[in-house]
């Protein structure tokens, strides 16, 4: 079984600065593997642990993907090898551009039985790349999956919806977007980190995967922090009876 797990490199939201004009400062933010993608990588490792085969990791994006710490970070979580499609034009890629690039890379890697995606990226969280990718590859395509069991040439999955759970039979090859509940991602061990540095990394340009023309389908006009509401800031100190009485008066007003 050949499994490909897709991941995105995102800024650590703890490091995002809101400037006075409400624009965001991302330039000092540390980069990390999307937190929703880590369970997808781990789910892939579980699938091959049960059914045999190999997990490859795949990401597409700007030059920052080449960062050695990030590459090791992915490979230390188990995948046997790593594929990157690097082009700075992908820095602002919309979900369709991302899905097209992933699809072209997966076709070039070849022989994928199962493609796994996280439920969304932890920065933009559109939850769209998996569904679009499945359609572009013409594979069976399902999202919100919280359990995968391999049975021959198909997989049985549990899909957790808003108020029901579906058990589905999905023929392979398939693209499956998984939830964070599927499995707890591992904390890599010392030897996993050490061996990660020795695993093969294949890097392609857009031209290498035959995707010179990949136009934008959606514009982002601006991104701003929301305006904060003005607050009354009536703060009472102490937890005496009188203090609580005062709070109670305020609360009672609000409850009317």
């Amino acid at each position: 079984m050949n499994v490909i797990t897709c991941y995105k490199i995102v800024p650590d939201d703890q490091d995002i600065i809101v400037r006075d004009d409400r624009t965001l400062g991302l330039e000092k933010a540390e980069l990390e593997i999307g937190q929703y993608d880590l369970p997808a990588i781990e789910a892939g490792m579980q699938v091959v642990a049960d059914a045999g085969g190999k997990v490859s990791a795949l990401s597409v994006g700007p030059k920052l993907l080449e960062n050695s710490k990030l590459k090791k970070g992915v490979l230390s979580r188990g995948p046997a090898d790593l594929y990157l499609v690097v082009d700075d034009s992908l820095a602002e890629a919309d979900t369709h551009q991302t899905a097209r690039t992933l699809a072209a890379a997966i076709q070039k890697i070849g022989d994928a039985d199962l493609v796994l995606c996280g439920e969304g990226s932890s920065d933009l969280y559109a939850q769209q790349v998996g569904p679009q990718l499945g359609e572009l590859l013409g594979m069976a395509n399902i999202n919100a999956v919280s359990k995968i069991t391999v049975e021959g040439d198909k997989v049985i999955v549990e899909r957790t919806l808003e108020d029901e759970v579906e058990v589905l039979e999905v023929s392979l090859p398939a693209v499956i977007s998984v939830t964070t509940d599927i499995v707890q991602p591992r904390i890599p061990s010392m030897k996993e980190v050490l061996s990660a540095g020795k695993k093969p990394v294949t890097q392609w340009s857009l031209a290498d995967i035959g995707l010179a023309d990949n136009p934008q389908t959606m514009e982002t006009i601006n991104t701003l922090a929301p305006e904060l509401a003005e607050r009354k800031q009536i703060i009472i100190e102490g937890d005496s009876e009188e203090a609580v009485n005062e709070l109670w008066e305020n609360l009672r007003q609000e409850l009317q």
Partner: protein
Amino acid sequence: MIKLSIPEKLALNKFEVNEGNPHIIIDNTKCQSCQPKSCLTVCPAELYSEQNGEIIVEWAGCLECGTCRAVCPQGAISWEYPIGGFGIIYRQG
């Protein structure tokens, strides 16, 4: 310059908290006889407090200096670094 409280100072920093796995554990049986309980004052992050006669530590905001461990005369503080990747992450240093 605007003066910041301790929580505000700590909020400037980046912490990767290993929820549910404290790296500081206090043996309160050893604290009963301790005077003057220096952990309550020496911690630069002021994480130690006394509640109902017990010493409590808010370990999530630990700056990992080790002062509390070094001054504790009772050896009541079992203190180790958080596991790899967790704890304070200085952005500047």
